[in-house]
Each structure stands twice: as C-alpha cells, then as structure tokens.
C-alpha cells in the first residue's frame, strides 16, 4: 500500500496541469535559447512503483544524459531533464553552434548542464508563481550513465515514503533532432501542499 492510493483522476489532472505550466515555460526558454520552435507534448501524471519509474526511459540499463536537481522549500522532490546520448549531442551542438563540442568534452558537458539549469529553473519558477509556494533547486548535476541508476539514486528521499512515486512527465521535441523529457517527482508529503495551495481538496 502506497500513500497515494486515494489520488483521484481529478487530482491527477491537477498534477498534469502542474506539468503543463512548468514544462510549458521551460519549453519557451529552450525555444529562446535555441531560437527554434519547440513542440511540447501533453504531460502525463501517474502513480508508479519505484521499479516502474526506473524502467521508464527505455529500460533501467539505457544509457542517458540526465540533469538532476533536488528541490527544497515548501515543495520538495526531484527534477530530471533526460535526453538520449544522440539527442544530448544534437542539443549541445545547437547550443554552442559548434558540432565539435559534445558530451565527450568539458564545454559540451557544461553547456548541457547549464541548459538543464535554465530549463529546470523556468519550470520551477513558473510553478512557484502559480502556487505561491517556495521551491528552491539545488545546483544542477549532469550525469551520463544508466537511467535506472540515476533515477533510483535521485529517488532515495522519495523512497522513504513507500514503494511508489508520483511521476509528472512532459516530453518536448524540435522536429526530429532534439527530444527530451522532464520528470518532476514531488515527494509524497509535498503533494497535499500543492493541492492546498491550488484550493483542491487533498482528501485528508
């Protein structure tokens, strides 16, 4: 039994809207950063077991580049910007305007980390404005490794509450070359705070 068995579809819709607002602003930032049109997909919000979360991105062993930020304040949780290796390299090439720069060298790693920081920053600040709740992000950290290892390590705080996590996922893409996902995983005890701030019953 997890703590979220009683989240109803209306509440999941609210969380989806949270993802919509946050990722919408982040996509706008990315669009300005790249001077390109970014298409955002409809967010998904779901309750998933820890194993399901780590299996999400094409399997726990899938090699990915992830920028992780821990969120502290009125709302706590984890935020990941996840891209495949090819997509990370395209994104870096666009950001720097130099196709020689990639995940293999320091300028490429810095560029991707900073992009993650800007995108997560605009995601969080729009949510913070919308809910009037404080959300501070830790410095971003870029990791290139197995998706499962990264996600599980970012979920240690969440795992203290039980076997499940709330996953708010939004994908974005720039036609075919750049594609990525935002995962926002609020800690279980932060969710009633978000609902309360938005005037939604948290069925306590």
């Amino acid at each position, binding site marked *: 039994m997890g703590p979220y068995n009683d989240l109803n579809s209306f509440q999941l819709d609210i969380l989806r809207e949270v993802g919509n607002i946050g990722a919408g602003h982040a996509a706008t930032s990315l669009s300005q950063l790249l001077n390109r049109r970014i298409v955002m997909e409809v967010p998904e919000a779901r309750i998933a077991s820890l194993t399901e979360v*780590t299996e999400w991105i094409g399997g*726990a062993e899938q090699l990915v580049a992830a920028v992780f930020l821990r969120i502290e304040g009125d709302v706590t949780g984890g935020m990941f910007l996840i891209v495949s290796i090819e997509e990370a390299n395209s994104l870096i090439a666009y950001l720097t305007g130099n196709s020689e720069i990639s995940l293999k060298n320091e300028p490429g790693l810095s560029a991707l980390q900073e992009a993650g920081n800007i995108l997560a920053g605009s995601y969080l600040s729009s949510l913070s404005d919308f809910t009037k709740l404080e959300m501070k992000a830790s410095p971003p*950290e870029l990791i290139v*490794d197995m998706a499962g290892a990264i996600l599980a*390590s970012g979920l240690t705080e969440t*795992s203290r*509450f039980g076997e499940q996590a709330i996953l708010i996922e939004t994908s974005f893409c720039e036609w075919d070359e750049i594609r990525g996902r935002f995962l926002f995983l609020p800690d279980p005890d932060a969710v009633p705070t978000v609902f309360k701030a938005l005037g939604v019953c948290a069925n306590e």
Partner: protein
Amino acid sequence: MSSVQSVVRIGIAEIGVAVFPKVIRTVGLGSCVGVVVYDSSLKTAAMAHVMLPDSSLAKGMVSNSAKFADCAVQELVEILKRKGSAGKGLKSKIAGGAQMFKLKMGSESTRIGPRNVEEIKKQLRRFHIHLEAADVGGSSGRTIEFDTDNEILTVRTVHQGTLEI
C-alpha cells in the same frame, strides 16, 4: 551450459531467489546495493536490491524488508532456508553503493551508497555470512548477474566495462 538461460529479474527494492540452472540479475544499481547470498551445496542464490541503509529512515510503516540494508540480509537467509538451506556456510557477493551525485540531497541522502554498503557488511557479519567479493563505491551505475553454477557475479558498468568477481 545452454546459451538460453532463464533469468530471475529483481527490480528496485525487490528480493528473489534463483536455483540452478537459473541466473539472477538486477539492473541499474546506483547508490543502491545488490546483495547476493548463496548456498553452494544447493546451487541456490537469493538477491536483494537494497535502496536505503536503515529502516528507521522510513516515513510510515516498513512494508518492504528488501528495501533496507538492516532488514534485507535476514530476509535473504530466510528465503534460502525455505529453499532447503541449513543456513550454514552461506556466502555473499555484493556490488553497488556508488555516489552518483556529488551534491547534498536532503539530510539523510548524503553518502547513501557508502552507508548502504557499511550496513550490509555489518549484517553479513551478524549472520556469519562470508563476504567472498565486493565491487562497491565509485560513481558509476552497475548491472549485476549472478550465475548459480560457477558462483561468478558479473558486474557491468557503462564507463568501466565488465568485471567478473
């Protein structure tokens, strides 16, 4: 040995057992630790994918002993006993416990990998289980597979290749 082996897969914070000729495997260990406890005489191995060092970290009820280092080893021994083990001369191999993030995340998340490893070693001593091999620490994710036949634990990483311990 047949090239088609059946594999028992262990998810995060899960526990399971494999009897020869099966192999047992868990993927994507970061700060988590994969613990294998096995009984050579039965060619039987139990594995847990441990996430947190101490069940006192749980907020609310502890519903899953596989998740916590201080509970998982006992559970592994009990599983082997249910498979017919006398519980004597058990051996162990462990891998994982990396520090994936440099930053400090929440008060209890600091050094979670090394703390998982320390607690598991302590529990192995408590149950008189000999630690045969370990590949722990560092900053890389690992996937592990234990072969119940030759007792080799294969550890695969993205950046450092594959290791057999």
